[in-house]
């Protein structure tokens, strides 16, 4: 049992943990692993933002750029991430993460959700170059696959 952070630090960590590197008073022994997996999440977010900007009409649709971003997302799902998620690097045992301990109790389900994400990413990569409407339609399942894991295994802010 580690010393609980102050409420302020917890709020700050919660506010920044999703995408930014967390600032906590105490460094986790799993800082490298947590940084690595959060970096992978940031790469997801960056590439999805390329598609999202087109889906929202903030930038004109560009088939080549959409395909490149979608391929990156599909590639990211292929990383072997096992070493980034060591036992004990959950948010009850260490700092700077919102990953719930349940994630480690349900590895089969986590892997299944990971496979579902890869499938949704492949579906996006297959249609991202086919025009705005097809790309937009693939955004929902992709977001759903991201959310499936966040719903079950990430501490809400």
């Amino acid at each position: 049992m580690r010393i609980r952070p102050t409420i302020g630090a917890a709020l700050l960590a919660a506010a920044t943990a999703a995408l930014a590197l967390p600032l906590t008073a105490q460094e986790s022994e799993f800082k490298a692993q947590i940084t690595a997996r959060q970096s992978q999440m940031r790469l997801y977010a960056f590439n999805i933002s390329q598609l999202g900007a087109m889906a929202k009409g903030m930038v004109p649709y560009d088939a080549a750029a959409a395909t490149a971003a979608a391929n990156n997302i599909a590639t990211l799902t292929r990383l072997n991430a096992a070493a980034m998620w060591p036992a004990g690097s959950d948010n009850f045992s260490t700092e700077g993460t919102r990953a719930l301990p349940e994630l480690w109790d349900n590895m089969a389900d986590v892997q299944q959700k990971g496979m579902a994400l890869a499938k949704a990413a492949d579906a996006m990569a297959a249609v991202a170059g086919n025009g705005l409407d097809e790309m937009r339609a693939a955004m929902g399942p992709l977001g759903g696959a991201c959310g499936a894991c966040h719903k079950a295994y990430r501490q809400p802010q």
Partner: protein
Amino acid sequence: MRRRLRRGAALGTALLAGIAAAALLLTRPERAPADAMAGLTGDATRGARIFDAAGCAGCHMAPDAPEGDPQARLRLAGGQAFPSPFGTFRAPNISPDPKAGIGRWSALDLYNALHFGTSPEGRHYYPAFPYTTYVNASRQDVADLYAYLMTLPPDPTPSRPHDVAFPFNIRAGLGLWKALFLRPGWVVTGPLSAEQERGRYLAEALGHCGECHTPRNALGGLRRDAWLAGAPVPGGRGRFPNITPARLDWGQADLVEYFTTGFTPEYDSAGGHMAVVIENLSLLPRADRAALAAYLKAVKPVP
């Protein structure tokens, strides 16, 4: 002297019992007239949209419903637990199973449940079931929802009891709670566009955003003066965010994207129960998600 005292005590007790009886009588479960739903024909296709907008599956689908299976969310076996300061509530089976679910209900029974929080046996439901929102739903929408619910697969799983301690386990007391907090009417008033009015209906009659995002008073009533201003997560850590314009500065397109895919403007994705809410919202017509976004812009800013 002693005799007079005793008589006084007896009179006092009788008086208190009388007041209690009167209070219970006045706050007993209310029901609509028997012909309230007469002449209305439910349309199951429209009802599916009501079902998604009201988020029924979010609470009533089984806790172990497999991910990504569109049929799984339609098996309304119940069983999900909802912790609160008053105890843990468990969503009941509302599949059309005649024994375990609502298969023997009439459309009027559903109306009484949604509108008055009253069961077909004439008992109070706990307000974990958001009838303070559904009280604003139209009769036609209830008729359509009823028609749709009856098309869903029956499930024989018995409902599990709530885990609520004394004194909150005395359901008669809920009559008083309802007298204080259950009333029809809109929170957001004033000049609204047609789109914002549609959004208000989705949020305040069906979608029950306020159940999580609005703070509660000591009795568990929603503080309408701080509508959608954020609240602590009951039985958990963290807070449901303030989604009034004072804090939520996302643009219309950002909100619609969030309701469609769960992606925030930073391309984080929704988690927790909000991910379930998005699963429901994403099934609505795009115009409904746009209406909901427009409504949020009309909510009173609360810092």
